[in-house]
């Protein structure tokens, strides 16, 4: 029997390790409340986006979509601003000072009544972290009275209210923060309250009985992050209680034939485009950029990659921003490219081909471009290879480099970037003016122009931020869109199509073009 003692000891040690690790994990499990219970009517929302922490600067976009926390301002599917926690607002001093009147009787999930001081605290803490509010030139935030918040800006901004709709500007209860201003719990005002938040994959939430707006009818919702598009599609087919976001084109074809499922598609405020380093040849030549854009078979890419007839992008801003749309520009045509004719145009501009069919720069060097992209959005590498094949028809060699998305801003800054393909969200702030001012700033921008700027465009963007008439604003928007279409500092390819699937039994399924809301409180079985 003695000979078994060492074996039993080591085995016991392992069992102890397993028990201890499990107890430690349970002890640290992040619970906010304890009264959650799952029932047959519960819903599981699945998307690829993982939870990093409780802080809105990192994961606010998920808490906003899950309707756990809200912003002062909301927006509809066309980007028009709507009252949310602020019931009204107005600008003073030509748009340099803004006052927001809070909605009466709004309660946080811990029962605290929303006051102006809570808004000031939440937004001041948000400003200490990366946030879109940085672009809003806020000098000071103060509480005028219990129900009024005032923002003093460094310069007039007509677009300012739109910044307060950003997901990093969520308003949280004072109990959400510790003494050092870190967010330790997500106690918002939304239609759902968080029961447990378990990074990176899971949030449990229950309907909030004291919600100020439309109360939710589905009592219990679980959010599950799953980065694999194949699994997400299979989840939609497995049980009737799933609502699945971000379906890929191959899965979509299968899901649309499933009689149990409803599939919804919406063109969202995100454009797939590429930027170029406009200082380096051949991209310093506007005519070259235009011909390159004309060489893209956008319809072909939409059909094969997105699996839809929709989504061809002929201009930078998506169609939901109606005022900004111009008639289809010649620089980004809809049809199949006429490669021989484009090649002739290139030859006329001084770009000749060598005996191997390679296109030569004006200094007679073969044109070879590195196109950077990333795989977080799985369609991007495929689009990159489609561009590679299409540009090859003009004799241009493109090397596709698939890496991490942070390589794009990093190589923009160190000046090594030639060309980058990505999907830009113009709806993060419901007014695209914010994104355009950032992207086409005189110094360029990580996700915008590189070594390109237009004084005329900047002037028009500034004018749009002044107190002008709607007719003047529309005219300026059209002029800005025309400059971007002519100059092509960034070249649009496709508008992003968002697909979701759910069982037919789930009613009220709809998509938000601005990706701000899952509309969970409007769903019912």
């Amino acid at each position, binding site marked *: 029997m003695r000979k078994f003692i060492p074996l039993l000891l080591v085995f016991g040690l392992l069992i102890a390790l397993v028990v201890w690790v499990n107890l430690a994990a349970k002890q640290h499990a992040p619970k906010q409340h304890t009264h959650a219970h799952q029932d047959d009517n519960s819903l599981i929302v699945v998307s690829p986006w993982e939870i*990093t922490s409780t802080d809105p600067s990192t994961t606010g976009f998920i808490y906003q979509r899950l309707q756990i926390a809200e912003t002062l301002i909301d927006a509809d599917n066309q980007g028009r601003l709507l009252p949310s926690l602020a019931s009204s607002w107005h600008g003073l001093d030509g748009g340099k000072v803004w006052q927001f009147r809070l909605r009466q009787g709004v309660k946080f999930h811990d029962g605290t009544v929303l006051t102006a001081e809570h808004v000031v605290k939440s937004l001041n803490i948000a400003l200490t972290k990366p946030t879109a509010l*940085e672009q809003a030139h806020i000098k000071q935030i103060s509480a005028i009275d219990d129900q009024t918040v005032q923002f003093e800006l460094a310069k007039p901004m007509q677009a300012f209210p739109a910044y307060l709709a950003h997901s990093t500007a969520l308003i949280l209860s004072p109990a959400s923060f510790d003494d050092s201003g870190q967010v330790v719990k997500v106690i918002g005002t939304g239609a759902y309250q968080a029961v447990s938040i378990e990074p990176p994959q899971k949030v449990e939430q229950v309907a909030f009985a004291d919600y100020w707006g439309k109360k939710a009818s589905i009592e219990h919702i679980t959010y599950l992050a799953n980065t694999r598009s194949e699994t997400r599609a299979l989840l939609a087919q497995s049980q009737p209680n799933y609502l699945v976001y971000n379906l890929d084109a191959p899965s979509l074809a299968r899901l649309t034939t499933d009689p149990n499922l409803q599939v919804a598609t919406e063109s969202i405020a995100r454009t797939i485009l590429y930027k170029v380093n406009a200082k380096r040849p051949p991209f310093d030549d506007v005519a070259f950029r235009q011909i390159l854009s004309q060489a893209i078979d956008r319809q072909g890419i939409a059909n094969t990659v997105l699996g839809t007839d929709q989504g061809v992008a002929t201009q930078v801003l998506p169609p939901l921003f109606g005022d900004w749309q111009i008639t289809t520009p010649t620089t980004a045509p809809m049809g199949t490219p006429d490669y021989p004719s484009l090649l002739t145009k290139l030859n006329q501009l001084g770009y000749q081909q060598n005996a191997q069919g390679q296109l030569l720069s004006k200094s007679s060097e073969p044109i070879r471009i590195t196109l950077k992209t990333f795989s977080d959005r799985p369609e991007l590498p495929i689009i990159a290879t489609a561009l590679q094949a299409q540009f090859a028809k003009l004799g241009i060699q493109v090397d596709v480099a698939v890496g991490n998305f942070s390589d794009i801003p990093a190589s923009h800054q160190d000046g090594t970037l030639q060309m980058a393909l990505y999907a830009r969200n113009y709806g993060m702030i419901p007014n695209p003016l914010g994104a355009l001012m950032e992207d086409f700033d005189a110094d360029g921008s*990580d996700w915008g122009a590189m070594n390109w700027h237009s004084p005329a465009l900047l002037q028009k963007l500034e004018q749009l931020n002044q107190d002008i008439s709607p007719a003047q604003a529309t005219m300026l928007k059209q002029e800005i869109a025309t400059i971007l279409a002519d100059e092509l500092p960034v070249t649009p390819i496709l508008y992003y199509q968002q697909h979701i699937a759910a069982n037919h039994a789930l009613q009220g399924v709809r998509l938000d073009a601005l990706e701000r809301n899952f509309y969970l409180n409007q769903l019912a079985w």
Partner: protein
Amino acid sequence: MTQRITKRLLQLILIIWSVGMLSFILTKSLPGDMAYRIAASRYGYDQTDTAAATMVRAELGLDQPWWQSYLNWLIDLVQFDLGRSLVSGELVWVEVTHQFAHTLNLALIALLISLIIGPPIGLWLAHRPHGIADRTSLAVSIIVRSLPVFIIGIVLIGVFSVKLKWLPAAGYGTWQHFVLPALTLAVALSVVSVRVSRQAMQQVMASPYYQYAKLKGLTPWQTLRRHGLRNVAITIIAFHSVQLIYLIEGVVIVESLFAWPGSGHALVHAIIARDIPIIQGTTLVMGALFVLLNLLVDVACATIDPRIDDHHKDTAHV
């Protein structure tokens, strides 16, 4: 035996230090700016820009020399402090225990399933060599083992979740959620286990002492129990200890596929994010577990076959 345990425990300390250092050096030598990578994982795609990276660099002191960061880690480690995640700001210890509990439970259940399936079928097949069952098992083993674990998982989800609707396709929280990921890992492990057990049993059955046991009039069951099981157990245990590496390798894919919040999934994300404290914490715990499991295997083998320990003693005296 005591010597063996002491040796393994010393190995454990060496593993903790070397795994931590290796993960530090390897992560530091990866291409790409750490500040951008950390900002990307913290703030997401729409908010990662140079301003966010600059803020991260200043907050985490990423400009300090590498040796200073390494020394800080080593001093903290001696004080049993693994630091905080560069991405979430959470204590590494809290994150690693949370993730590791999920991985450990999943891997152990997978191992248990493969032990229940593999050896019994293998031993049964050894008594019917070259029959239809044996040949079929060989073909199935080759096909299943050559499939990536990802495909096995998709097939199992397709059958048990989509078609039969018996089990959840992904997620965690109930015992039903365990079944498919554990089965995915166990299936590939079992098919090889069947063949290894079958081969080991065949060798034992062909040995003179086994033949003699039968000749002296023992029943087949008595022969197996007294002369077969112990001898075949050594090979089976040794095989499963080597296959533990497959579990860790497979867990990375399985966890991503089934939305399982374990160490494999977290480790991949930590490498992408250059979250050095999490990489060090996870690899350290995994390394330590390996040493412990190998110790268990050593002790188990020495208990089953005392000659192993005697051999060690003899060579030590020489």
